């Protein structure tokens, strides 16, 4: 059986222009630069990386919210990048998105009922009592009291709003959900409520999910596999627990060692890899391996050729030429 979602050499470059009269392209920001991914049905893939590494752009290009520069996005055997806009609209009931900020992603002038019923109608033309029932059922699924369906988003707290956003994503009964930092704007005690909700919904409904976050602890908790992104490319992909416990790529190692652990006894025994400098700019990425200027294991060969993403151990792929040696 082939993969549920296949991303094949996906590229998204944003052109940079100079001049007003003689406008010309002077370069491009390579936000997503050649990404290959395969996701199985019912799998939760966590996508981590620092700000500006292209996580959100990747999500938006898979969702067909922006045209892609090159490559293909194949959902259940159909290439989404090749079909018309109208066909994508019809197809979109199968893939939905949850955004980071529930204050910005819900229409403030629509009640919960309006928001959810509109989303339900994209799949099924229901009216009257049937749709009210359906909205109530959805609200129950995400843990909101159904008698609050006539309320507006501002009457809810941040966590409740994120529940509404999740209900809206579930309404058209999608097979794939992309969640872009769905818990980053929430407080710690609310964050765990939403994480548990997302996880149990995925398990119950066999949803496939791409879960984007900069917080590795959250990603490890929720996902089956983790993909680590750096400067528009994947540097490592593998099973979640293995990536965290035994990272292969030097960037993943540094990233995981930088996450503070909420236990002072563990903290004292940990050795932190402190990276020098900031992530480089995607307008002018370094030659060869994009991580080499900050990597303590870099040798001359790293500056010359871009390391391929290849299988280093069973089920684990990484893009580093020195993994065997370090």
């Amino acid at each position, binding site marked *: 059986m082939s993969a549920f979602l296949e991303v094949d050499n996906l590229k998204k470059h944003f052109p940079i222009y100079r001049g007003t009269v003689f406008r010309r392209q002077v370069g491009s920001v390579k936000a997503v630069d050649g990404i290959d991914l395969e996701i199985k049905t019912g799998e939760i893939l966590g996508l981590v990386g*620092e*700000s500006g590494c292209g996580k959100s752009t990747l999500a938006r290009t898979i969702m067909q919210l922006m045209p892609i520069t090159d490559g293909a996005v194949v959902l259940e055997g159909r290439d989404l990048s090749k079909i018309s806009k109208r066909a994508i609209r019809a197809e979109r009931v199968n893939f939905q998105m949850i955004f980071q900020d529930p204050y910005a992603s819900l229409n403030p002038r629509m009640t919960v009922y309006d928001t959810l019923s509109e989303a339900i109608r994209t799949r099924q033309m229901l009216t009257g009592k049937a749709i009210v029932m359906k909205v109530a059922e959805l609200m129950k699924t*995400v*843990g909101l009291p159904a008698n609050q369906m006539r309320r507006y988003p501002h009457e809810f*707290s941040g*966590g409740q709003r994120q529940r509404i956003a999740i209900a809206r994503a579930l309404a058209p009964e999608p097979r794939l959900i992309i969640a872009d930092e769905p818990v980053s704007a929430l*407080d*710690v*005690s*609310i*964050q*765990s*409520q939403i*994480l*548990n*909700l997302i*996880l*149990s919904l995925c398990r119950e409904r066999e949803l496939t999910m791409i879960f984007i976050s*900069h917080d*590795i*602890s*959250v990603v*490890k*908790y*929720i996902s089956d596999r983790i993909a680590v992104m750096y400067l528009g490319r994947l540097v490592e992909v593998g099973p979640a*627990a293995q990536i*965290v416990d035994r990272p292969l790529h030097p960037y993943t190692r*540094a*990233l*995981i*060692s*930088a*996450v*503070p*652990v*909420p*236990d*002072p*006894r*563990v*903290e004292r025994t940990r050795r*932190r890899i*402190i*990276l020098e400098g*900031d*992530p480089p700019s995607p307008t002018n990425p370094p030659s060869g391996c994009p991580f080499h200027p900050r990597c303590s294991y870099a040798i001359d060969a790293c500056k010359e050729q871009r390391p391929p993403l290849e299988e280093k151990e069973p089920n684990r792929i990484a893009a580093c030429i020195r993994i065997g040696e370090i």
Partner: protein
Amino acid sequence: MSLLEVENLRTYFYTRGGVIRAVNDVSFSLSRGETLGIVGESGSGKSVTCYSLLGLIPKPPGKIVSGCANFDGLDLLNCRESELRQIRGKRISMIFQDPMTSLNPYMRISDQLVEPLLVHEKVSRSKAFAKAVASLEEVGIQDAGSRINLYPHQFSGGMRQRVMIAMALISRPEILIADEPTTALDVTVQAQILELIKQRQKDLGTSVIFITHDLGVVASFCKDVNVMYAGRIVESASTDEIFVRPTHPYNAALQQSIPALHKKGELLFTIPGLPPDLTSEIPGCSFAPRCAHAIERCKDESPSLQEATPNHRTSCARFQRGEISDVRISGVVSAL
């Protein structure tokens, strides 16, 4: 001997929606050279506590209703503005969360760095400039001599936070208040900045009050911790005590509800409900409606922060009375 002694601080905001009791009877002390963490969720009053100390509360709507803060013989909460101005930015300085909005975008880094020196120390402009360059070098900015003339937007987020740290430490303050200094930064940059603050603290012997919502940062950075909830300190002890032997159910529940890198498990523990609305007076313990250990009495009896075990203060009345010895909750509640 403590350097700063805060007692019974109450800061209220008088708004159209009612009186918000943002900080409600907070007392703590800070000794010389120590690192004190204040943890809590948004709205728990951790930032307002520190803003009150430096007179940064907008009045109205804010008002410091009661309390005193003894800093080297001077009460920060009840002194004249001119006296406070002698301290703020010189003996006590502050780093804010977002380095983009706390640096002036219209001013060169050099002018912003030199300003506190010209105000607080009677030095010439050229001497101040030399000192500013040196302070940038101390926070790890290479080529400081030329980069000092740039504007904030020409720096990255991590670099801007370094500039903020240089600016806060340029007058060698006795206390540095860091209000979520790494929240807006990536983890790899966060590690750099935490290391830098630690290093500079060691060099200068500064006391640090570190405000954060991230328990991981607290564990790696602070010596003592105050946990705040709904405007009050609910638990206060050394970092080890806070994590190893929690004595307040909120602290325990918070720790159980975060997914941690080194732990495995199925469903996360969740704290039911929402933080309380601070506009209405809460008669009993403010955490009682969400607490798994609460009994009827908790809702009526006003809690007070007391030492229950040596050097470990908690406001949980049931723990103080010895009714519960382990505030952790075993078993996980359902997903919704």
